[in-house]
């Protein structure tokens, strides 16, 4: 049975719900054991972290370490934690076979902090999902920010 867009959307919405709720340990269970999470530099959106400086280029160990860090009250950039709200649209299935599905989707992630104006992260997600037990696991998750520079977004201190 081919994968439907609705199945993919349901999965992405569920993931967004976990991240917005800061349920980071549960979020980790959505990842494969060789998952990667990347945010390329704004000026080189289509490149390889082996030869180009990224903003984030985590393998699974670094993703887990990132979660460990973010759960501490000493991760100052996210303490007190910001509130985020993710809107995911324009979901498209690009490629699929029995094992993997490649998709892309647009996002707006709003980030709110006390006494600060809203930060708006706008861009595109690219996922490689592995089909597993009637659902998916995330093998690769790339967030490409449209802004030419991070500019007033300053940093990507949460899981984008």
């Amino acid at each position: 049975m081919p994968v439907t867009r609705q199945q993919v959307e349901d999965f992405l919405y569920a993931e967004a719900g976990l991240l917005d709720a800061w349920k980071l340990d549960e979020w980790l269970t959505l990842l494969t054991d060789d998952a990667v999470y990347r945010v390329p530099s704004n000026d080189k959106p289509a490149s390889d972290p082996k030869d180009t400086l990224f903003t984030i280029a985590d393998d699974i160990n670094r993703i887990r370490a990132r979660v460990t860090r973010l759960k501490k009250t000493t991760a100052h950039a996210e303490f007190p934690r910001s509130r985020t709200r993710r809107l995911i649209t324009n979901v498209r299935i690009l490629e699929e076979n029995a094992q993997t599905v490649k998709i892309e989707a647009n996002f707006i992630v709003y980030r709110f902090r006390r006494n600060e104006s809203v930060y708006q992260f706008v861009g595109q997600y690219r996922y490689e999902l592995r089909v597993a037990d009637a659902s998916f696991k995330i093998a690769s998750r790339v967030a490409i920010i449209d802004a030419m520079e991070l500019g007033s977004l300053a940093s990507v201190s949460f899981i984008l």
Partner: protein
Amino acid sequence: MNQTPDTPWVINQPEAMHFAVNRATLVDPQILELERRRIFDTCWIYVGHESEVREPGDFRTRTVCGRPLIFCRDSKGEARVYLNTCRHRGSLVCREPEGNAKYFTCFYHGWTYDRDGALYGLPGQSAYPPNFNRAEFALQTPPKVASYRGFVFLNFDSGANVMSLDDYLAGAKEYIDLICDQSPSGEMEIIPGSQEYDIRANWKLLAENSFDDYHLPATHSTWLDYLKNSGVEMKRPEKGHMLPAHGVGKVLGNGHAVIDNINFRGRPVARWIPIYGEAAKPEIERIRAELVTRLGEARAARVADTNRNLLVFPNLVINDGSSVTVRYFEPRAADNMVVRACALGPKEETPAARAIRLDSFLTFYGPGGFATPDDIEALESVQAGMASYREMPWSVMTRGMAKEGEQLNTDERHLREFWIQWDKLMRGAA
């Protein structure tokens, strides 16, 4: 606000062991205006690295000291800097971030300049009066441009008394040389991909923060935990120390200063730590062996087993730690700055070594790293605290003042040097 004997901007009283910075210097727009004239328009300011414009016609546009510039390689192979403003009626001539061009055409009325800056052509020249001489309308250059080891600087001071870049860099050159010694050819290059972000804080706070090891244990405990959890050996700090290894703060002349540390955090050139993974070991050992062959044991150890954060006054930071980052920043407003950061590596680095370097970079540095976001938070937090500068006008910066001789990286002697030079220039006493 004006500086008066009652309200100085910097109090420096070594005998009384007192040093304090007036917080107005971090909030007052008039002080910022004066800084633009007395600091940014008199010092040598970093523009870019020659490796960013390799071939004739390669260009980058960027803003330095508030001026839009074209940084490019001319037809003779020289790195050049032009003011990015049309000699006709002022439009930006080049609006692309980077590329290669034979000509730069101003789109407004179509004046065209070649890569040597000369006005090559213009539409409808016959309407100009006979005294119009095309040769007088080349792209303007800053008064002075010079480079050291590939790092290109400009100086907006057109006066006759400006010291040469060489003299200006003073003791900072020794450290730039040390960083360049990572490369077998002595040539380093900027790696593609740049991190550009704003911090809602006064620019001087980043100068301080970039080489302040005192904040490391408190601000970056999650990063230190990460190193520890991934198997990096963290010795207990020795008596009087705050970090696992010894490190000193040194002043280098003309406001430049450095922290110079025994390494504990791993280095792509060339000290392996478990974060790099077992597979990286042979590559790191190969790099180490090359260093020893080329430089001898002692200098190789200096390159590989020490790390340094160098501040080239006023706004260039080269941090040669978990990787090498070249970071420069300038004010947008008294409470806002723009930061650009790149990674620097040996020109002939192998793909495997380059990958280790970039991966190691991201453990600490940059807006998605495990440390820089907390620095940004710290600086913005300081700036928020500055709202009460009238009631609480002084920041204290006296660490190490009672010590004779060696100053630690967690002391504040090197930070004071930044402020001493800043104050000297702001008084017009250079």
